[in-house]
C-alpha cells in the first residue's frame, strides 16, 4: 500500500518536473522579449520597469500606424471572408448542383497551395493594374485564401446541422435565404466564431504578402513594420522588443481569452482537412 502510494507520488512529481521544463521552454522566448521591452533603453538609466518604451515604440517607432493598418486589413478580411464563406458553405453543405464536386475540390486545392506560388504572379498582375501598395492588394488575396478554409469549415457545419429544423422551417414557408440567415447562422455561432478567430490570426500574422506588395511606409502592416524596424537597429534593444510585444499582443490576447475555441478550432480544422 505505502509502496504503491510512494510510487504514484514519485511518478506525479517527475511528471510535474517534465511538464514544468517543457512549459519553461515554451514560455522563455516570450518572457525574454517582454522583459527586454521593459528594460531601460539607454545604459545607466534608472532601474525599474520602463513602460514608456511602449509609448516610444507607438510614437517614434511608428507602430501605432502599423497596428492600425493591420487592424484595417484583418477586420476587412475577416468580415468579407466570413460572409462569403457562409454563403458558399451553405450552398455546398445543403444543396445539390451539377459541378459541385469539381468546384469543391478546386477550393480544397486553394487550401493546400502555398501563398509563395501565387504571390509572385499576383504582384506583377497587380502592378500592371497599379494596385500594389494598397489595402486591396493585401485584403483580396487573403480573402481568397481564407475563403477556401472558411467554405470547407462552414460546409462541415451546415452538413452537421439538424435537418429537422430546416425541414420545419421550410414547411412554415421560409425561403432558402431566411433559413440561412435567421436559423442556421444564429445556431452556428460557435462555428462562425471559431472561423473568425482563426482567420483573424492568420491575417494578422501574415508576412510574405505585405512584404511583397507594400513599399509605402505608411501602409506597412505590423509584422512588416517590425521586420523593417529590426533592420535599422541592432539586436536586443528594448524599443524593438516593445514593438514586438505590441505586434504579437492582439492575437495572444484573443488566444488567452478564448483558448478553448482556438485549440478546438485548430484541431478540428486540421483533422477534418
Amino acid at each position, binding site marked *: 500500500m505505502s509502496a504503491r502510494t510512494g510510487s*504514484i507520488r514519485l*511518478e*506525479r512529481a517527475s*511528471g*510535474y518536473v517534465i*511538464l514544468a521544463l517543457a*512549459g519553461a*521552454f*515554451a514560455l522563455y*522566448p*516570450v518572457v*525574454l522579449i517582454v522583459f527586454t521591452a521593459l528594460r531601460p533603453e539607454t545604459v545607466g538609466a534608472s532601474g525599474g520597469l520602463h513602460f514608456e518604451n511602449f509609448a516610444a515604440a507607438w510614437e517614434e517607432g511608428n507602430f501605432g500606424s502599423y497596428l492600425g493598418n493591420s487592424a484595417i486589413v484583418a477586420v476587412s478580411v475577416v468580415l468579407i471572408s466570413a460572409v*462569403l464563406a457562409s*454563403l*458558399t458553405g451553405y*450552398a*455546398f*453543405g*445543403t444543396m*445539390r*448542383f451539377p459541378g459541385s464536386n469539381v468546384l469543391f475540390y*478546386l*477550393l480544397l*486545392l486553394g487550401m*493546400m*497551395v*502555398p501563398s*509563395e*506560388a501565387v*504571390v*509572385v*504572379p499576383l*504582384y*506583377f498582375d497587380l502592378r500592371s493594374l497599379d494596385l500594389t501598395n494598397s489595402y486591396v492588394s493585401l485584403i*483580396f488575396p487573403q480573402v*481568397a485564401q481564407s475563403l*477556401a478554409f472558411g*467554405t470547407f469549415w462552414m460546409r462541415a457545419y451546415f*452538413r452537421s446541422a439538424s*435537418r429537422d429544423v430546416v425541414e420545419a422551417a421550410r414547411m412554415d414557408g421560409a425561403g432558402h435565404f431566411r433559413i440561412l440567415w435567421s436559423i442556421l447562422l444564429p445556431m452556428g455561432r460557435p462555428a462562425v466564431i471559431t472561423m473568425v478567430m482563426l482567420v483573424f490570426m492568420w491575417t494578422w*500574422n501574415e*508576412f*510574405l504578402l505585405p512584404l511583397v506588395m507594400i513599399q509605402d511606409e505608411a501602409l506597412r502592416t505590423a509584422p512588416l513594420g*517590425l*521586420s523593417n524596424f*529590426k533592420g535599422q537597429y541592432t*539586436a*536586443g534593444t528594448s524599443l*524593438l*522588443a516593445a514593438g*514586438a*510585444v505590441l*505586434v*504579437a499582443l492582439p*492575437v495572444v490576447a484573443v*488566444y488567452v481569452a478564448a*483558448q478553448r475555441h482556438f*485549440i478546438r478550432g485548430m484541431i478540428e480544422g*486540421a483533422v477534418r*482537412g
Partner: protein
Amino acid sequence: MVSEPPAVGARRRAGRRGSGPPGEPRAVAYLYILPGFLIFAGFMLWPLVRAVGLSFYEWDGLSLGVWVGLDNYRAVFTDPGLRSPFVHSLVLLAFYSAVPIVIGMALAGLMARGVSTGSGLRGLGFFRTVLFLPQVVTLVVVAIAWRDIYAPDGPLNELLRALGLDALAHAWIGESDYALPAVGLVGTWVGTGLCLVLFLAGLSKVPRELYESARLDGAGPVREFLVVGLPALRGEIAVALTLTIVAALRTFDLVYVMTGGGPGTATTVPSYEVYKRAFQDGEVGSAVTLALLLTAVILAATIAITRVAEGADR
C-alpha cells in the same frame, strides 16, 4: 426476401437522400457561390495559371520575357543553387516534424496517464495553454526573440558559459555549421504544442478501461502507452505529420528575419529563394518554377500521408 410495400420503399429512399449529403437540387446554389468564387478565381486560380505560364519564360520583371521552354525546370535539377534549398528543407523536416511529434507524444502520454490513473496531475489545462502558445505568436516576433537568444552574448551562450561549457558557445545563426539547426530548433519550439494538443485530443477518446486492463496485465507506463495509446493515435499522427511537414517546407518568415538565408547560403529554403529570385535577382521565371515545384511537393506529401493513413485504417 420479403418484398416491401412500395410506399415504405419510397420513404426509405427519400430518407436516405435526406440524411446523406446535399439536399435537393437547386440552381440558386450558383448564386450563393458566385461572389466567393469570383474572388477565389481572381486572386488564387488565375495567379496559379499565370505562374505556370511564367515558368516557361526567362523574365526580369521589367523588360520583355524570353520563351525558354522547360529550361527553368531543367535548372532545378542541375543548378546546385536551386537544389540546396530543398536539401535544407529536408534538414528542417527533422526539427519541424520528427522532434515535435516525438516530444508531443511523450508529453501527451504523460498528461493522459495522469488522467487515466487518477493520480491527477493538476493544472493540465494550464500546461496545455502554455505549450500551445508558440503556435499563435507572430512568426516575425518569434524570429526576433530567438535572434536575441542566439546572439553571441545572448542567453544561450551565457548559460553555456555559466555551466563551464565555454567551448560549446557559438555565434549560432552566424556560423554556417549551426545556422540551419538553429533555425530548425525554432521550428521545434513552434510545432511541439500543436502536436501535443492533437495527441491529447486523440488520447482522450481512448476508453479508460483499456488502460486499466493493460495495467492489470502488468504493463508499465511506457508499455501501456505503446499498447493502448499509440494505436489510437494513427489518425492524429497523420495530421501532425501533414501540418508540420507543410510548415517546414513553407518556412519563410523565420529565415527572412533571422538569417536572410545566410551565412552565405547556409539557410536558404525554397520559399526564401522564390522571394529572392523574383524580387531581388530579377529571375521571375526561375522563381515561379521553384514555387510550382514547392506546391507540387506539398500536394504530393499531403496526399501521400492521407493515403497511407487511410490505407492503414482499413
